[in-house]
């Protein structure tokens, strides 16, 4: 959908309400006068107004408690909704005319009591509809490996992969080690990869902005303000500092960027806020590697399968693969609105029948392992052979700094692990998202950006929505594009007596 065009259309001036033709069988003016003298309002007068203008209008009118009957426009009949429409539009236009709101800092811990990390600046321009989220970071470039006085490589980057690499270097003759350790050093400190620091800064900015911008529009839910929208723009501002102390007070995070060799797979990446939930939006630390600003190379969303030659059965190793996957991908809980990922199962076989049999075998194992809803699995013909492949969701590779920036935006991990990360357990943003209408976020292997993929789902925008409410000073915001505002009409929506359930029915004034 072209949201820019849609928003431009929706932002077109809303015409004032046309004079309302007089109802043939009701006199709302007379009813209004009667209602204004509330203590003496006879039931017949209220009924007449309900028929003419609808229940909602009567309720609003009673709340306003006007002291005198509103004037009847010359050449037309008084429209009881006109006043609230005009007031709302005037208020809305003044809100827009006052210009940008913010920027100001947003702390995800303020309204989500389960949160203890993250922070960003937020600014809203009602004229353009831009909700600008700015993430500022001071980047400290750190060697991922060092050489100690004894000539041994020491892993600085704390992952298992770098520990293994240090051991591999230390198996080399001493004279050969320095050259290998240098590959784990940024170019400014003598490393061989020219321009690597600028490439990292550029990659950080572009990958985070591309991953998170303009995914889910918001609109104002205040009556007659629904054509006011907010589209999220992301601005990442990262710059080098020479030491951790060089981080400015207005920067949200210190980024420790560990240099690793080109092609490195794995690594530790984390976000923390030493001051915890009581801290500010500016107290965060992010640890990443130099390869985290480009898409991951470890195929987290892909699994290879092998079938027994000439049979419809998976090999024992592949059975294990399927069972593990099923357990990491629980079905959505009843009533959940946050989707779970599906699987695309590409199957090889000697003919179509065998391929279908093998697909059924995969589905059977998915179901047996964890009650996996097999409608989540889609068959794909892989041609002849005994292999197979499972792609989780889109299968698209994640860029780690985009995931870690999700923590800066106030979101928890969604992938699976032990303890609180067990598949099916709720995350630290589950309840907060549910309060905004997106229920059932869980830890699960999926293509979600907070799991192992790159999909930014609506519930991932919950902190942006909260930030919009904060910076705009209004709570009346919701998901979805702007909506055209229609001028009020004397014809209203009101319950038609005697209809089944007594629910509201669309009707016109009747006498």
């Amino acid at each position, binding site marked *: 959908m072209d949201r820019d065009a849609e928003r431009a259309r929706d932002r077109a001036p809303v015409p004032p309400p046309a004079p309302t033709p007089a109802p043939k069988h009701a006199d709302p003016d007379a009813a209004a006068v009667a209602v204004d003298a509330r203590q003496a309002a006879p039931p017949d007068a209220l009924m007449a107004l309900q028929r003419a203008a609808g229940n909602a209008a009567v309720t609003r009118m009673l709340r306003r408690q006007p002291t005198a009957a509103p004037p009847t426009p010359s050449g037309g009949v008084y429209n009881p909704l006109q006043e609230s429409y005009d007031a709302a539009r005037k208020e809305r236009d003044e809100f827009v005319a006052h210009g940008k709101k913010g920027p100001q800092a947003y702390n995800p811990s303020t309204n989500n009591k389960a949160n*203890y*990390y993250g922070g960003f600046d937020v600014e809203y321009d009602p004229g353009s509809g831009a909700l600008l989220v700015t993430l500022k970071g001071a980047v400290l470039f750190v060697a991922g490996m060092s050489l*100690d006085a*004894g*000539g*041994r490589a*020491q892993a*600085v*980057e*704390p*992952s*298992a*992969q770098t*520990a*293994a*690499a240090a*051991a*591999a*270097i*230390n*198996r*080399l*003759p*001493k004279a050969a080690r320095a050259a*290998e350790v240098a*590959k784990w050093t940024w170019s400014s400190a003598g490393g061989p990869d020219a321009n690597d620091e600028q490439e990292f800064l550029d990659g950080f900015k572009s990958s985070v902005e591309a991953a998170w911008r303009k995914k889910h529009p918001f609109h104002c839910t205040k009556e007659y303000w629904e054509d006011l929208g907010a589209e999220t723009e992301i601005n990442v501002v990262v710059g080098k500092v020479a030491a951790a102390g060089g981080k400015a007070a207005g920067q949200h995070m210190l980024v420790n960027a560990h240099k690793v*060799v*080109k*092609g*490195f*797979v*794995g*690594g*530790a*990446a*984390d*976000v*923390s*806020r*030493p*001051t*915890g939930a009581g801290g500010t939006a500016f107290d965060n630390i992010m*640890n990443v590697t130099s390869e985290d600003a480009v898409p991951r190379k*470890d195929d987290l969303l892909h699994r290879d399968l092998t079938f027994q030659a000439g049979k419809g059965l998976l090999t024992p190793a592949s059975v294990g693969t399927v069972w593990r996957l099923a357990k990491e991908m629980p079905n959505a809980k009843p009533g959940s609105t946050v989707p779970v990922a599906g699987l695309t199962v590409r199957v090889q076989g000697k003919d179509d029948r065998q391929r279908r049999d093998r697909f059924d075998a995969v589905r059977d194992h998915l179901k047996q392992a964890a009650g996996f809803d097999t409608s989540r699995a889609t068959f794909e013909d892989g041609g002849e052979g005994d292999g197979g492949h499972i792609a989780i969701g889109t299968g698209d590779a994640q860029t780690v700094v985009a995931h870690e920036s999700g*923590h800066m935006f106030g979101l*928890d*991990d969604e992938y699976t*692990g032990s303890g609180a990360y067990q598949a099916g357990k709720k995350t630290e943003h589950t309840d907060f998202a549910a309060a905004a209408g997106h229920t059932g976020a869980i830890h699960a292997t999926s293509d979600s950006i907070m799991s192992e993929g790159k999909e930014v789902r609506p519930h991932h925008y919950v902190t942006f929505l909260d930030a919009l409410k904060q910076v705009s000073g209004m709570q009346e915001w919701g998901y979805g594009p702007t909506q055209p505002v229609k001028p009020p009409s004397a014809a209203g929506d009101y319950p038609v007596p005697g209809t089944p359930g007594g629910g509201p029915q669309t009707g016109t004034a009747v006498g």
Partner: protein
Amino acid sequence: MAEAPEPLLVERRVETGDDAYIDRITADGGVWTGGNVEATLQDGQWRFERRESEWQRQATLSPDALAALRDAVARSGFFETAREHRPDVAVIHASRETWTADLDGRRHTATLHGRGVTEVPSLSALAAALERALATTDDA
């Protein structure tokens, strides 16, 4: 995971998510590496892969190096340290380091969560002792 070589003297297991790299010294001075991550260097090019967990004997400590390591383990305070060490703050997705030592019939395990963020003196002492021992096996 293949069965770990025994009898154990000291082991350091570094884990990032499901990935693990392990240094293990057995009581006879055997120097072993294990885990499911593999970092290989061939013709100047690095390759990083996951593999089936396995153990490889890399070297053997000299009697002097083995005795020094045993002494360092005994003096490190490791057997009195807590089983869990967490950073002062919650860290999203940090690596962890698990140490196990077995000396004179006592076996103890301690896990450091938030590797690179958390410092525990007794574990740092153990790490230094392990590095000194491994350094004695270096090729010239």
